[in-house]
């Protein structure tokens, strides 16, 4: 029977609205793989009521890390937690990135925007440890919104940054940076996480070039483990589409599976 482990915060770093927590928990670490996520309680009371989904940002033998941006009340409460406090976490949940085939001699390009970069650090580390070549494209509105660039760099992960305002790296969307890079060469696969618009664009690009791409999707989640049917996205089926659960069948889907609604 899976229990809800109360994980202790053993490390914390903050950059403005962005926060990184390291939790001690062999249970959570045991089920960890890149792209999977936890459902986390942010208050003891009933307001906010629901848990919040956060991706595994990294994991070791007895610890995991979370990286998040304050988006509303739940994440604001989470940002107030201090070292030594415990978090009520459920997980790891969902189907993460599929890395089979990505070993020596294969290259993977990872694209993340804003908080969407969270799962990519863990993914990059894991792919590299399998021998794959990795390049990360990391975008934000301003240089303050790409706080993890040093972390990637000091881990020796090749990194290209983009900021909308040009305050660091390429000036423009990270998808435009990716587009430019794709003119110069092709990886064996793309892995992306970020807002819907970015996922849609990355997916289109990949499909256009015939590149396999895995996209991690977001949705408001009621439960995180397949019980509420609240988190659906349209996924291809036969000749049409079908609402499938992001929490259970995803959050990572192939770009070729995803159907985007007309806006």
């Amino acid at each position, binding site marked *: *029977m899976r229990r809800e482990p109360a994980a202790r915060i053993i490390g914390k770093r903050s950059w403005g609205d962005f926060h990184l927590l390291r939790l001690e928990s062999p249970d959570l670490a045991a089920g960890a793989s890149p792209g999977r996520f936890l459902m986390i309680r942010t208050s003891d009371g009933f307001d906010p009521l*629901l*848990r919040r989904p956060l991706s595994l940002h990294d994991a070791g033998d007895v610890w995991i890390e979370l990286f998040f941006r304050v988006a509303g009340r739940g994440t604001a409460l989470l940002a107030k937690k201090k070292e030594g406090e415990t978090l009520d976490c459920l997980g790891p949940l969902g189907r993460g990135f599929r890395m089979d085939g990505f070993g020596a001699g294969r290259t993977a390009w990872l694209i993340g925007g804003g908080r969407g970069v969270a799962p990519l650090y863990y993914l990059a580390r894991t792919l590299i440890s399998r021998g794959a070549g990795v390049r990360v494209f990391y975008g934000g509105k301003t240089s303050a919104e790409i706080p993890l660039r040093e972390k990637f760099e000091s881990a020796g992960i090749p990194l290209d940054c983009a900021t909308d305002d040009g305050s660091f790296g390429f000036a423009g969307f990270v998808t435009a940076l990716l587009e430019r890079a794709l003119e110069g060469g092709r990886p064996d696969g793309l892995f992306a996480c970020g807002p819907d618009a970015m996922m849609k664009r990355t997916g289109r690009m990949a499909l256009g070039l015939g590149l396999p791409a895995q996209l991690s999707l977001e949705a408001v989640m009621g439960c995180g*483990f397949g019980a509420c*049917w609240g*988190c*659906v996205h349209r996924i291809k089926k036969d000749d049409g589409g079908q*609402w499938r659960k992001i929490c259970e069948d995803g959050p990572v889907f192939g770009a070729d599976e995803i159907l985007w609604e007309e806006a």
Partner: protein
Amino acid sequence: MADLSTDLGFLRLRNPVLTASGTFGYGTEFLPFLDLAAVGGIVVKGLYFGPREGNPPPRLVETASGLINAIGLQGVGVERFAADVLPELRRRDTAVIVNVCGSGDEEYYRVIEFLDGHEGIAAYELNISCPNVKRNGACPAMDPRATREIVAGAKRRSRRPVIAKLSPNVTDIASIARAAEDGGADGISLINTLLAMAVDLDTRKPKLGNVLGGLSGPAIKPVALRMTYQAARAVKIPVIGMGGICTGRDALEFMLVGARAVQVGTANFVDPASAARIVREIGDYCDARGLARAADIVGTLKTGL
């Protein structure tokens, strides 16, 4: 250890805690988190005859101590349920109640007639109160006559007990409860969700794909408790109470106002082991107070009236 067993007349339960329809999937989703034999029984997700697409997302909005949903009863339909889910549930030692849906009376009956041909179901819960399907939130449980007729129709066809699940979106819950009783219901359950709405000020659009949705969770508990109280005083058939139950004390409060059993809904999302924990907490409360049987608390509220 206090005796938690619960007699609904038409069904004996090991304890008074059921899981509420639509909040416990088909039951199997919760196997990693709890032993289905620990709860009194499970009410599975609402079933139409055929598979259903459900509503477009967004389907959920969190509100102050509550949750609005407009899932729209996405589901696999009776055939796949009977083929894939039922055999799995039969292997677990728990009472299975099927939440029966329909676009019109006939569909309810077809669901029942089909399922009557399969084993492993303890009772039907007629979902005549789902506010998420029609865009104005209307449902049979808003009208005494419609309630009586559909219940009577279901009873005539069913070889199993029929529980009518009532809507809180009514002026007089007592009259609807009596209509269900008159129609021959073996029990009633309440409340379904409160018809609700949320909007996005910046885009000026509804926050739910379906515009309207149903409010559940701790926010609605005071309304649910009141309606359970009123319904229990209006009928002689057993009443199953729900709405915002999160703890053993919550469950016992519903029993105090007259519910013979309870259902746990939204709490399953927050803590997937909620239902089993609530059973334990009921036992602990009874033991601490020296109550030999949890059922003895049913309807013992002292109102001085």
